[in-house]
């Protein structure tokens, strides 16, 4: 499994490949030694035109922001590629990139291997994500409301009194016909929600343990219910969720490193954008307007 989890690290391959693709694509940008990026109206309009050709419509504002971000990223990476001389010849590019990325990947895999302390810290910060779900045991007796709502309530209340007097009555034998069993042992919270719905679940969890109560409402009708046992949800111990935490942390670090790598490169540039006439500027992350 760990092998699989490391694979997002090949994001670096992606960056490298972008260097490769873009270096060939862009013939109109400034030279590799320049640290200025000037986005002229012509560039912006060409991006818009490209989008329109593909999609038969203008981009939305968010899509347009995406186009601009992408262009900027391409521009930066392209220049880096040029600076490295990657633009000379396909074969050379391929070999050079491979060496570089293999180096990077190897390096990165080592530094991403989380320690147990890292995992614990990640778990602590994201305790909610890894909570152990509540486990609920309960009994319910169903009363359908279709034919007569008031009557259903009356029947439920009367049954509740009966059950209080005779707590050993088998709940599977009473009430109206129902799709699901009366007695549920050790049901996880998500299953309770999935089967009985949120309305029922939220009321059930508030009931006193071991006591017939109600009626409780659900999407289906009325229920007299007894909460038999409730093992509340709780934060997990690392051992219980070790694999999931490991998988998520490696994945997160990879994404962050990916982003840092780009931001580091971007920060070496001064970016100015001259917006086409009549166009509202949009803000781009990492670019000072």
């Amino acid at each position, binding site marked *: 499994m760990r092998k699989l989890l490391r694979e997002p690290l090949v994001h670096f391959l992606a960056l490298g490949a972008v260097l490769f693709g873009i270096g060939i694509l862009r013939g109109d940008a400034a030279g590799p030694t320049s640290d200025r990026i000037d986005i002229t109206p012509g560039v912006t309009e060409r991006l818009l035109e490209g989008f329109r050709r593909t999609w038969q419509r203008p981009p*939305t504002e*968010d*899509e347009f922001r995406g186009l601009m971000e992408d262009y900027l990223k391409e521009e930066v990476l392209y220049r880096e590629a040029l600076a490295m001389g990657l633009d000379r010849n396909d074969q050379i590019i391929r070999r050079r990139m491979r060496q570089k990325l293999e180096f990077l990947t190897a390096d990165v895999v080592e530094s991403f291997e989380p320690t147990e302390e890292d995992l614990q810290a990640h778990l602590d910060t994201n305790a909610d994500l890894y909570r152990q779900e509540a486990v609920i045991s309960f009994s319910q007796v169903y009363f*359908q*409301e279709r034919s007569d709502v008031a009557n259903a309530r009356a029947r439920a209340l009367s049954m509740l009194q009966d059950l209080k007097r005779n707590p050993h009555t088998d709940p599977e*034998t009473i009430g*109206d016909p129902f799709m699901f069993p009366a007695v549920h042992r050790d049901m996880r919270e998500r299953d309770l929600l999935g089967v009985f719905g949120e309305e029922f679940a939220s009321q059930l969890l508030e009931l006193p343990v071991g006591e017939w109560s109600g009626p409780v409402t659900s999407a289906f009708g009325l229920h007299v219910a007894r909460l038999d046992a409730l093992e509340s949800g709780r934060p997990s111990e690392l051992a219980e969720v070790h694999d999931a935490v490991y998988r998520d942390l490696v994945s997160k670090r990879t994404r962050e490193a990916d982003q840092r790598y780009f931001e580091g490169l971007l920060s070496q540039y001064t970016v100015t954008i001259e917006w086409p006439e009549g166009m509202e500027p949009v803000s781009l992350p990492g670019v000072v307007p």
Partner: protein
Amino acid sequence: MPKIDSMKSITRSIAQWKSIARWGVIAVVVLLSTAVEASAQLPPPPDGVLSSAYQGTQYSPYAGRGFPSRVYWGDTHLHTGLSFDAGAFGNTLGLEEAYRFARGEEVTTSTGQLARLSRPLDFLVIADHSDNMGMFLDLVAGKPNLMADPLGKEMYERLKAGDGVNVALDLIRMFSQGGIPPGMTYAPDSKPFKDVWQRIVDAAEAFNDPGVFTAFIGYEWTSLVQGNNMHRVVIYRDDGDKGRQMVPYTMTPPLGSPNPRDLWRWMERYEEQTGGDVLAIAHNGNLSNGIMFPLEAQYDGRRLDAEYVTNRIKWEPLYEVTQIKGDGEAHPLLSPDDEFADYENWDVGNLDLSVAKSSNMLAAEYGREALKRGLQIEAALGTNPYKFGLIGSTDSHTALATAQEDNFFGKHTGYEPSPTRMDHDMMTGPAGTVTGWMSVASGLAAAWATDNTRTAIFDAMERKETYATTGSRLAVRFFGGWEFTEQDMNSRQPAFAGYTKGVPMGGDLPARPSGASAPTFMVYSLRDAQGANLDRIQIVKGWLGDDGRTYEQVYDVAWSGDRSIGSDGKLPPVGNTVDVANANWTNTIGASELGTVWTDPDFDPDQRAFYYARVIEIPTPRWSTYDAFRFGIPIPDGAPTSTQERAYTSPIWYNPN
């Protein structure tokens, strides 16, 4: 080193697919009024107490019985960016995102939107296309072997130039027609293919969480003959130790074949070699142009024989009857008396729209008709090849298993929510055009299983204790036997009587006891806890007449409200509360549950027959109506404003012998 992530970034950057429209997608379901005035067919028990109905010896009536008491929800047919067509269309999401989304987590889609399911799924089969697994990744990366092929080189150049959509369409067209040059074909024995398969198995292993979430190992065998669809999803009961031992079967010769007989041979070999267990589920007979359910001869002219019919039913216990590319239960031309048959059908042409549909093709394309044909073939050859149960699934290529009308993310990445997705021409060919709005927000697979594990759910599939829905999570039980009575339906848990006195959906009626004049069926349904009320339950019967021809009849057996069957034999419509302008509805009509015991009034003990239940919800807004409301755009011409979601159970069969 697998290259999927490099594909992601390059595809995105080259094809400029990164649209970042972040309108938050609302997975919150509008809370509805639950006031229900309608009366249903379930009478309340006279005194509210039926202690005599309980037969159990244990406190927990399920203990020791092995009955499934819960229905589990899943999608058995989902594609990620690993599928060559999905990747080319711009899907940058991989296996991990697909599993996370299905488990109920929020993910960012390939077009930058936030998406989440209203409720998690219980199980998922990621079924990426086996043919050319890994090829598109390498094409994007400009691998030398592909660059050596003139077409590969050309496509690579076009990808670089931002022409990704058209490259994708060309690839699909060529694949459909068998035109991908040998130099670009990735055979199952190639390294990239094997690498991708390892990744798929590894991911299923990582996300499989017995008792909580089942991640099946699986793939799609993408058989196409001149664009006619005979696709199957292959699902493994097994864990990775077995799944890794063999690579998937493809349709490309010499290592693969488009002939289902060869797929069955592969499945046989897999089981022999690994001791494992696999099954296959066909889908989209509606795009097969008459070759999915042959009556006499296969697409290649070879006659159906004992080998074909026994293998087909041995390996294919289920059929995926409803999905994004059309609902395939029934067609109005095949079932002119069924007013619900005209439902989200796709009948323009075959998969790539290279050949138009003609009406004589339909009988070999639709689920109900195939069930009928199965009776005919059984009479002739001794085995019913189409004795399948039913499930629905999405066939989504976005890595997002969405089937709910109010949370629908479309067929592929180009059809994620946007103001223009409904009007795009989705597919165009000589046969005609399929427009974006025609996509169907469907379906789901429901399994009555004893637990949420690979083995328990797979076993439910093999015994066909499953049903299809078009996206809602309504619960349905369907039992057949010879002596069900109203009393069984009125017992606290009708399922006890169901299992002890009869068989559940997917089964065969027990031998007819002497004196029994007609089979009885107990059917009941409970609405989706977050969804719409129920309109009616129907039982669909198909049978083989003495004249050797097949017949069908749809019976309304339980319905909401104070309606009665008219002189035309039809139950009046339930009504419609859909507020089209606001994409809303109320549960003020319909019933939260329906059920009855029904006896076949037209039973002939000498005739082979099958029976299945169809449960229909009250009208709710179609996904296109939600799109119109949320984007403030008109509903396209031809798009229905509301839809009646439904469930199709697996049949129960009667055999006179």
